């Protein structure tokens, strides 16, 4: 007779795992030296670092001329990065041809931006509504008045004199803040059941996406004035701003649409069955979920936009990269590493902003995860 029948008389309690499963030594053994091939790869990786790090250190720090150094120091043989050049031209990299006595106006705008955007980005910070109103309505108006001047006794500074990081930041902040809502509207329009709205949105998205940004900027700066009535001019900077924003919003629309398609039909139906109107369904149910799904895609577009701002040099604007390029030819700092130092600086600034956006998006993704993926 076989023993088919079994009845458990006592439940087995939970017991600790047999070996320590955490700690630095366990981590090293598990991740770096688990198998012979792992060990080999680890050693190769260490060798690569040993090969690349010392020369980099030598160029960037060891043999470099620190800020405050002279051009003669930068002209010695085998010199490292010429940071003295960056430090001495920093004002131009940040403000372009903006008059030096008026720098304070730009600084106030930078300070306002930081003071408004940091609490806005922190989920726990209070007064969100006031903060948002200040950022969306008060800040842009104050910025235009401050930067452009011409009223309240402020000297008028034409946009031709704007430049450097200031231009990069203005175009990207405006582009980012406008392209997301525009993109959402376009995405909703593309999903609309109303044929005319749908066709307009599809046509806009497909037209803008199929054309390089450079073409759009050219069109905005050269073609647009031809269609304008005589005497009416739109500022070149404004035209570039609109071009970048529209370009980015077309991409954003497709990212958002992708997110909306990931939402099951049941969500639309449940929201409808409760009697919520179209805008409330979208605003409370569909978009919050859809946008959360596509945070990586949205931030991807933001980062692309941030870097694409350097294309405005095409229409004669001097953004950060173009400002650096201009000064790289400056005779007074002519030295073997002048240009490369300039480009490293520009790259570092771009990297800093883009990397911050990337980290912030990852933080938001984790925060917004309500654990519904089971």
């Amino acid at each position, binding site marked *: 007779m076989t023993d088919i029948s079994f009845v458990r008389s006592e439940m087995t309690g939970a017991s600790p795992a047999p070996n320590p499963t955490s700690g630095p030594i366990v981590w090293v053994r598990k991740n770096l030296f688990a198998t012979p091939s792992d060990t080999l790869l680890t050693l190769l990786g260490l060798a690569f670092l040993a090969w690349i790090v010392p020369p980099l250190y030598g160029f960037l720090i060891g043999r470099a001329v620190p800020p405050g150094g002279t051009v003669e120091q930068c002209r010695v043989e085998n010199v490292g990065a010429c940071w003295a050049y960056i430090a001495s031209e920093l004002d131009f990299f940040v403000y372009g041809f903006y008059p030096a006595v008026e720098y304070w106006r730009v600084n106030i705008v930078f300070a306002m931006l930081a003071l408004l955007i940091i609490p806005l980005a922190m989920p726990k910070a209070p007064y969100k509504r006031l903060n948002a109103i200040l950022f969306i309505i008060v800040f842009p108006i104050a910025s235009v008045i401050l930067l452009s001047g011409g009223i309240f006794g402020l000297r008028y500074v034409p946009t031709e004199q704007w430049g450097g990081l200031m231009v990069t930041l203005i175009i990207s902040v405006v582009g980012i803040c406008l392209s997301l809502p525009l993109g959402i509207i376009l995405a909703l329009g593309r999903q609309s059941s109303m044929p005319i709205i749908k066709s307009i949105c599809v046509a806009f998205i497909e037209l803008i996406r199929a054309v390089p940004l450079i073409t759009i900027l050219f069109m905005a700066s050269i073609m647009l004035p031809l269609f304008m009535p005589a005497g009416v001019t739109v500022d070149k900077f404004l035209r570039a701003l609109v071009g970048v924003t529209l370009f980015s919003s077309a991409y954003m629309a497709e990212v958002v649409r992708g997110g909306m398609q990931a939402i099951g039909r*049941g969500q639309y139906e*449940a929201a409808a*069955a*409760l009697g919520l109107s179209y805008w*409330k369904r979208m605003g409370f149910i569909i978009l919050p979920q859809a946008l*959360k799904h596509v945070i990586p895609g949205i931030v991807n577009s933001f980062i692309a936009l941030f870097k694409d701002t350097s294309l405005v040099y095409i229409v004669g604007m001097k953004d950060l990269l173009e400002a650096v390029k201009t000064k790289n030819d400056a005779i007074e700092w002519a030295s073997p590493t002048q240009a490369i130092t300039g480009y490293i600086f520009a790259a570092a600034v771009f990297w800093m902003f883009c990397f911050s956006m990337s980290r912030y998006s990852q933080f938001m993704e984790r925060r917004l995860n*309500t*654990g*519904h993926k089971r």
Partner: protein
Amino acid sequence: MTTATEAAGQPVTRSKMQISKTDVAIDVIGMNKWYADFHVLRDIDLKVMRGERIVIAGPSGSGKSTLIRCINRLEEHQQGQIIVNGTELTNDLKRIDEVRREVGMVFQHFNLFPHLTILQNLTLAPIWVRGIPKAEAEATAMHYLNRVKIPEQAHKFPGQLSGGQQQRVAIARSLCMQPKIMLFDEPTSALDPEMVKEVLEVMISLAEEGMTMICVTHEMGFARQVANRVIFMDQGQIIEQNEPEAFFSNPQHERTKLFLSQILH
């Protein structure tokens, strides 16, 4: 199939389950619906009086779900009339919203909003559709969470709840709108067997309070206990309808007999 409701162990109180003789809740007249060329619903005539508890049964693809989804216009019908609480459903969005406000619906897959807490799921529509103040909406929500016996889950997210709990939340979410009619679209079909009972108990108690309801379900025990009318559908048409007792003990149509012999054994 009767086990789940019988296991609920409570005799159904029929005293309050009064059916109005004059007040028509839903009137479907000569309704036809097509999906492109496919004729899904054919000549549906159905009059539901206030207080009726109707169970719709039938094989899959017979149009049961489509029929109740037409009643709150999740699906559009092409011919005939559907009048709900005196409002005829047309393309007029205002009328559709009017009907949806008064008709609750519970889905097979719950369809809770995963990005909102349970409490937010329950208060969203009362606040934004009915314009009820937040505090009041939350009090109502807690009342209905108590009724479905999960007040302690109010601040969790739907993903943290079991299927049975989620479905009870979904019922509570509909009730928060204080609907006059409830539609159930296979509410227990996606649940683990152990959780069917807790959902049926809530539905039974709703019936006892006199809620007008239409349930598409395969729970024949529930139909026997609670329904005053069972409708059998096949191929998009109503084949047979009767009181549960007569329907189960003495089916007339061949298709009904076959169906019952398949599911009752």
